[in-house]
């Protein structure tokens, strides 16, 4: 039983890096490429008696749902087959949320740029920022202001990055023993309970909905 347990967490650990790195990358880049590849068709659709909102949202839902299905099939099923527990469910949940966040961000990038190459470049930059640069800055902040009580500040800073937020939800499951030692207790108290789940979910929802909303606003006025 224990043997199986450690195996599951090992599987989840290896999937975690995929989750935090590859999922945002694929979601973002696929969305941008898709947006520009179907540009002419979008144009034809817009020449039909349809609202721009309808065309945009249909496109968003199509891309988001196919990426979500891809995630569930590629990552979700194998994990769940290994064992349904709170870690694997959290993995599934954060993976789906991250997919949606990066689809939204990529849509925003796509409507704001004029050509495909630039859009992919900016999407990669966004991905790079959230998965690497942001954390590097955070570590620098932690070092530079180590004498000050940072917990609350870090909590806010971490919530501002969807990748970090997803990561913390995961390490609360996987490294709870280590986390309890330090500020972790604060994070456990904050994210570990029902209202914490609600909080992180709503932050992620903001990360999903706000970019889509702005993108829609831009798209409605965009010259195709």
């Amino acid at each position, binding site marked *: 039983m224990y043997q199986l347990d450690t195996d599951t967490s090992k599987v989840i650990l290896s999937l975690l890096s995929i989750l935090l790195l590859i999922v945002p990358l694929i979601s973002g880049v696929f969305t941008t490429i898709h947006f520009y590849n179907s540009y*002419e068709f979008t144009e*034809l*659709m817009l*020449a*039909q*008696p349809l*609202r721009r909102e309808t065309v945009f949202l249909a496109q968003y839902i199509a891309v988001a749902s196919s990426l979500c299905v891809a995630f569930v099939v590629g990552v979700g099923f194998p994990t769940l087959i290994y064992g349904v527990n709170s870690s694997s469910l959290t993995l599934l949940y954060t993976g789906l949320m991250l997919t949606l966040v990066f689809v939204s961000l990529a849509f925003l990038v796509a409507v704001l740029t004029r050509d495909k190459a630039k859009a992919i470049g900016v999407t990669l930059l966004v991905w790079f920022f959230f998965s690497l640069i942001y954390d590097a800055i955070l570590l620098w902040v932690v070092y530079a202001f180590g004498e000050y009580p940072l917990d609350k500040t870090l909590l806010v800073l971490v919530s501002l990055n969807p990748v970090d937020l997803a990561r913390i939800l995961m390490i609360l499951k996987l490294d709870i023993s280590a986390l309890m030692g330090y500020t972790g207790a604060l994070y456990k108290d904050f994210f570990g309970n029902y209202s914490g789940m609600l909080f992180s979910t709503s932050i992620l929802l903001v990360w999903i909905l706000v970019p889509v909303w702005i993108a829609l606003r831009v798209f409605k006025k965009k*010259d*195709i």
Partner: protein
Amino acid sequence: MISIRKVSKKFNKLHALREIDLDFEKGKVYALIGPNGSGKTTLIKSILGLVIPSGGDILVDGESIQKSWLYREKIGYMPQTGRYPDNLQIGQLFEMMKNIRSSNQSLDEELYNFFDFALLSNKRMHTLSGGTRQKVSAALAFLFNPPILILDEPTAGLDPLAVEILKEKILQQKKAGKLIIITSHIMSDLDDLATDLVYVYEGNIIYNDTIDTLKKSTNEQRLGKAIVHLMNQNSVQQ
């Protein structure tokens, strides 16, 4: 049918359209020509609502198209390059379009039948040649029997037989009293089809009259020659 009132469009510093006034009437076929980047595509896209003008207004049947979308029921649009989702089948595409334009108008399936799409209905879009995709675009534009047809380079990439079929179709629609706007670089095609000529240059309408008038004023029998004449005149003026 379509009235364009002082329509301007600026892309950053580029003036694509400068306060254009234009009327398109039904029963006529307009040849919309002009060099690359002259603004004709912008003009078409403005009518379709794809480009939002920086100033002025466009009326279709007397109603402003701003913030409106249902007017596009009246327009059949054939884009210059028709690209469709790769895995969509021809049959599915037609079904989808019928779904979108769930109007009560009787369908005009003549082109659909001419091009034998019923036989190809299981073919996926990415397997089709550029010419076949153009045929699909054409069939879709005429399918809903719309009073206005906007055709962007309709004959480009089509085989000669298909060109003839399409031209026949356009003439037939013209007789049916429809408004047809065509952009093309193939003057012989336009010569056969168009009644009127709109020449756009650097965002301005340089010429807007019937082709007969143009031919008379330039003493040319062929449209191509007449237009060369017009262009020369234009550069002299400049």
